[in-house]
C-alpha cells in the first residue's frame, strides 16, 4: 500500500496545536504586532528566508537570516526606526501542516503558504508563495520554533522585503 497515503501518524491534538501556532504566527504579522513575532521562537532559534533555487543549491545566503531571537528583534526595530519603505501589509494564508518527523527533541513540519501584499493605495497582489520548513520544540505547555526556514517558490522578490514572512 502506498505510504504516501499513510503519513506518519500524529496525534490530532498535536496537529491542532501546530496549526494554532501557525495561525497565531500569521495573525501576529498581518495585524502588525511585529514586536510579538520573535516570541514564536526560542532564544537561540534560527530564522531564514531564502528561495527554492538557493535552498536546493545549498547556498548559505538567502534574503534574511536571523541566528537568534535578538537578531529578530533587531529586524523589527530596524523596520520601525531605521528602514524606509512604502506603507504596506501582508495577508497570510497558511495551509495545514504536514509533520515530517517527530522525536523527543523536536517536531519537523512543512507547511505551504501564500502571502498577499497590499501597498497603500493599491490593489492586493501576490507577494510570495512557498513553504515553511520548521523545527518545533514542545515544552509541554507551548510550542515554539527552533528553526523556521521560509522557502519562497520564486527566486524573484519585488522591490523589497522588510516585514517577515
Amino acid at each position: 500500500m502506498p505510504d504516501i497515503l499513510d503519513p506518519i501518524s500524529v496525534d490530532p491534538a498535536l496537529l491542532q496545536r501546530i496549526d494554532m501556532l501557525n495561525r497565531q504566527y500569521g495573525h501576529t504579522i498581518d495585524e502588525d504586532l511585529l514586536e510579538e513575532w520573535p516570541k514564536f521562537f526560542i532564544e537561540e532559534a534560527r530564522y531564514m528566508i531564502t528561495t527554492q533555487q538557493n535552498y536546493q543549491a545549498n547556498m548559505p545566503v538567502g534574503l534574511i537570516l536571523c541566528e537568534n531571537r535578538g537578531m529578530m528583534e533587531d529586524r523589527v526595530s530596524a523596520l520601525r526606526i531605521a528602514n524606509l519603505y512604502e506603507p504596506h501589509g501582508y495577508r497570510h494564508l497558511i495551509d495545514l501542516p504536514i509533520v515530517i518527523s517527530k522525536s523527543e527533541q523536536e517536531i519537523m513540519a512543512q507547511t505551504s503558504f501564500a502571502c498577499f501584499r497590499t501597498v497603500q493605495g493599491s490593489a492586493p497582489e501576490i507577494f510570495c508563495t512557498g513553504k515553511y520548513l520548521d523545527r518545533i520544540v514542545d515544552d509541554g505547555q507551548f510550542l515554539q520554533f527552533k528553526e523556521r526556514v521560509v522557502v519562497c517558490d520564486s527566486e524573484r522578490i519585488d522591490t523589497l522585503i522588510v516585514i517577515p514572512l
Partner: protein
Amino acid sequence: MSPLDFNLNDYSEIPYAVYSDEDLYKKEQAQVFQGRTWNFLALEIELPKPGDFKTMFVGDTPVIVIRDSNGNINAMVNRCAHRGNLVCIEDHGNVEHLTCVYHNWTYDLEGNLSSIAFEKGIQGEGGMAADFDKSCHALEKLSVETHCGLVFGSFSENMPSLIEYFGPEMCRNIERLLGRKIELLGRFQHGLDGNWKLYMENVRDTYHASLLHSFMTTFRLNRLSMKGAVEVSEGGLHHLTYSIRTQDNDQGQYNAREIRASKDDYTLNSPELLESWPEFECGTTLAIQSLFPNFSIQQLSNVLTLRLIVPKGPHKSELTWWVLGAAEDTPEQRAMRIRQSNLIGPGGYIAMEDGAVVGWVQRGVKGAEKKKSVLAMGGRDIERKSNSRCNELAVRGFWQGWHNLLEG
C-alpha cells in the same frame, strides 16, 4: 524638448524623459547594450564544466553563456537561426550541443550550425534550398573576454580589451576583490519598478548613501566624513568609490536633528550582525564600483556582491545579486560574511531603500517629461578623481558615457 536635450557643456542637468521615452529605449538597446560596450555575462564559477550553460539578458536580448569542450566560454544570442525560437529553455544546465526543440536544428558549443533535420529532405523530396549555406547561419555570437573570473561579452567586434576598456584604476579594484579563488554563497533576483538607469545613478551616487540609509549612517558603516575618494574613468564610463570606516573625521555633520538618517537612539540587540575582520590591507571598508553600462561590484565590510541591472522596458528593470565568499575563508570569516549579508539584497538593512527609491523616482517624474533633474553637487564638471565623496561626480560621468554612446 527631445529626451536627449542635455546641456551643451556639461551633464549636470538630465531630462527626465530619459527614464520613460519609448523610442529612446529602443535606441538605447542598439547603441548601448548592442553597441560598443562590454556587458557582464556570468561568473566563471557558474560554468565549471564543459557544456555548462546559463541564459541571461544583454539589454533585453536573450543570451546563452556556455563553456565549450576546450574550456572556453562562449556567448551567443538565445535565438535560433532558423525561425527565432529560444535555443535554451532552461535557465541553466549542461549540454553536449545546442539543439533547438522546434525543428531540431543543432549548433555546436561555439554557436555554429552543425546539423539541420532533414537537410536533404526525405526520400529525395524536400530539404533545404540549394542556395542555403549552413556556415552563414550560426547563432549570433558575442565577443567574450574574462578577467578575474568575471565573464563579459560584447555585440561589437574589435572592441578594446577588457583591461583597456576598464582602465588600470578600475582593474586594480577588481583584482583586489576578486583576484583570488572565490565561491558563490547565494544569488537572487530583484524586481524594480523603474528604469535601469535610475538604479545605476543610485550605484554611482556617493552623495545619497549616508543620507538615505539610516542603518549605514547610524552604525557608521559609511559617512561622508570618513576618509575616501571617488574615481571616474576616461569618458565617464566607469566609477569607483571607497571609504575607510576607521578614519572618520566626524565634526558633527551628522547631527541627528538635521540628518534624518542619523538615529542616536537606535542600537542593536545582536551587534554580532556587524562583526567583521580587516580583510584588506588598504583598510577599505566600503567600495562600490560600476562598470558601464549596467554592472556593479561592491564590498561592504566583508560582504562581496555583484549586481547586474537589466532593463524590462522603460519603466521596469530586474536586478540580479551574486553574493560571494573566498575559498580561503576560515569558518569564522565565512560565518561573518553570511551574517553581514543581512545588509544587502531586497531584504538588506541597507540595500532595501535603493530598490524602493528607484520606483519612487520613476513615479515622481511622471508628468515631468519636459523637465530636468539637477546634478550640481560637487560642481558641474567631471573630474577624474575627488577625495571628497560629497558630490555627484560619478553620476554626471554616467550620463557623459551614456550620451556619447547614444549619439555615437
